[in-house]
């Protein structure tokens, strides 16, 4: 028996050593960086360039760059932070960093910016990064929506590109049809994400809501959902979804694929639609135009920050990384990579304009949204964002499923939003 035990002990030790040998050798210092954009067309090249530049100027420091899927991003990051092993370089969506800041997990960057003499005035969307008097992040991208459309499908029906709601809905209705005679619609006038989470759902709804002048909250953070404008906005959303003028139950990635395939005629989207359209086999037919509404959807997209609970030495390194990302050179490169204006007022967009054909349209969209103060993160509901969006999504779905009157739904949403806010 003893011999058996001894052999077992050796075997365990051997396998321990074998498994630990799989771990790679470490550089002197490793910064941990987690992002969902590691393989996104366009921005991934910018990040790769940033990482490479940083490593070149900091010999002995390596950046361990890990991809985490967007669908599991928040809970993965939450687990990492809650367990005490946050990434050094923090990359988050603009509507989810508030919880992290609330827990004191993000380092105040204001002193760093001040010392480095970087002026953030005029930095698009940066005001959203001010939390409790601290600058907890750097806004990486503020986008405005554009309308991507399929010229060929429009020409086939003989319609012009819409410039307002009435033209839009008429076009969408005409473009939704069955093309192969089996009585099942397989071409859709427009495409919305109705399968994603709450935040994506309300972003889609906002296309129509903003046009009527409705807002979720006002400048003071008071809930303003029970208004005639909101009721009209809800009615329009209901019409589009209920009559299946958009494919149902698909996430945005699949909708974009359908647009690329030529099965969806219009896609209201952020600038990320452009690289996809440009790479499509139908690229010649796919064009961009301003949204046919008074105000496009817009908002902060993603932010860059620093974990608060890391060593001072690492903090200095992470700061260098952030400063590099904010540098004029990298900001100019960002515009081309993201097909969208970079937030820095000093970024040089000439290269972007040359590379991205409809750049001016995209930039105009971002400006229009920014001027109107649009952000899909409603003021006064930042912390409860997830709950708020879930509620709105549910009530909107209820409206569609049970065929409710939008007026009643608006009232319900008002009441529930106020209750959430009070928590």
């Amino acid at each position, binding site marked *: *028996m003893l011999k*058996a035990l001894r052999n*077992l002990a050796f075997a365990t030790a051997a*396998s*321990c050593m074998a*498994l*630990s040998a*799989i*771990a*790679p050798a470490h550089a002197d210092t490793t910064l*941990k960086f*987690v992002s*969902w*954009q590691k*393989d*996104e*067309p366009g921005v991934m090249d910018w990040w790769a360039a940033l990482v490479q530049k940083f490593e070149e100027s900091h010999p002995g420091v390596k950046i*361990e760059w*890990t*991809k*985490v*899927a*967007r*669908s*599991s991003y928040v809970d*993965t990051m939450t*687990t*990492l932070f*809650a*367990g*005490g*092993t946050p*990434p050094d370089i923090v990359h988050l969506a603009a509507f989810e960093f508030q919880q992290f800041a609330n827990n004191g997990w993000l380092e105040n960057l204001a002193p760093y910016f001040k010392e480095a003499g970087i002026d953030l005035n005029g930095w698009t969307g940066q005001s959203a990064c001010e939390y409790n008097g601290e600058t907890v992040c750097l806004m990486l991208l503020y986008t405005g929506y554009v309308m991507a459309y399929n010229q060929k499908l429009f020409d086939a029906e003989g319609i012009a590109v819409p410039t307002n709601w009435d033209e839009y809905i008429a076009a969408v209705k005409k473009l939704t049809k069955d093309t*192969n005679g*089996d009585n*099942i619609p*397989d071409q859709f006038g427009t495409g919305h994400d109705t399968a994603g989470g709450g935040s994506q759902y309300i972003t889609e709804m906002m296309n129509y809501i903003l046009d009527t002048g409705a807002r979720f909250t006002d400048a003071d953070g008071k809930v303003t959902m029970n208004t005639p404008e909101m009721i009209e906005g809800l009615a329009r959303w209901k019409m589009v979804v209920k009559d299946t003028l958009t494919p149902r139950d698909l996430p*945005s*990635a*699949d909708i*974009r*694929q*359908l647009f*690329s*395939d030529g*099965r969806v005629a219009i896609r209201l989207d952020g600038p*990320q639609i452009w690289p*996809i359209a440009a790479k499509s*086999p139908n690229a010649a037919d796919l064009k961009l135009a301003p949204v046919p509404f008074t105000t496009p959807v817009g908002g902060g997209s993603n932010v860059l920050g620093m974990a608060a609970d890391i060593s001072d030495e690492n903090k200095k390194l992470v700061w260098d990384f952030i400063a590099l990302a904010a540098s004029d050179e990298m900001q100019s490169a960002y515009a081309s990579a993201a097909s969208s204006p970079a937030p820095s007022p000093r970024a040089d967009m000439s290269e972007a304009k040359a590379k991205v054909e409809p750049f001016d349209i995209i930039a105009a969209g971002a400006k229009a949204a920014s001027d109107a103060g649009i952000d899909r993160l409603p003021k006064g509901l930042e912390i409860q964002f997830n709950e708020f969006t879930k509620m709105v999504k549910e009530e909107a779905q209820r409206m569609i499923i049970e065929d409710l009157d939008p007026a009643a739904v608006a009232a319900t949403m008002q009441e529930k939003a106020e209750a959430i806010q009070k928590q």
Partner: protein
Amino acid sequence: MRRTPLQSLALYGAVIVICGILVFPIYWLFITALSQPDALRAMPPKFWPEHPNWGIFAEVLNDKPLLLWLKNSVLAALGAVGLSMVVSIPAGYALSRFRLRGGESLGLVILTSKMLPATLLVIPLFVIFRQLGLLGSLWSVILAHATLIVPFSTWMLKGYFDTIPQELEQAAMVDGCSPIGAMIRVVLPVSAPGLAATALYGFVLSWADYAYARTFLTSAQQNWTLNLGITTMRGEYISNWAIISAACVLATIPVLFIYLFLERYLVGGMTAGSEK
């Protein structure tokens, strides 16, 4: 066989139809992998792609470190199964041979552990593994998977050992063997089918895990398992379903392989495992 031709026909017909329906989703996965991206949402659906893209498998292997993920899944599964066997064989044997106080309630406790939702345990486990320095290492999932496997395998092995008459060990001990020696040298060889069934069960369970791998291995890309790797293939902006399906097909091959080998023992192992 005293079966009429009609009965035979009915039987074969039923078998073919039912097996066909039940296995159809797997077939669908396969042809999704082979389809061209723009044909994926073709109406009417095609039951065999017009231009099957056999190169997709090479493409996905080139594109993503599938072989690395495969290696990690295999290592994790082997480790989990190994650890579980080392732990549950003695445990099952003990419950079978010794009239231990609390032997029955132990069974219930073991069953209770099967009732725990993963979300409840994830953060405490995360902290434990961090303190042990195991985060990002395959050992964290090996241990976590073992906790999933051990309850059922202990119980299954206990049942299996129950069917083996104690005379065998007693004979060995009379010949000078120690009790544990008797267990190892006499009982284990005889219970090979039961062991194989337990090993298969453990392997499938470990292979299928996603929640634990996602929580403990995220920060260590070089240790990602297949399930974890595949879910990261869903881009935020666009998803290439053909590539994802191809990766899924490749991900199921190993477990199917093992299943093919050990399936015959599964029935036998389960039988003995639940009889008294």
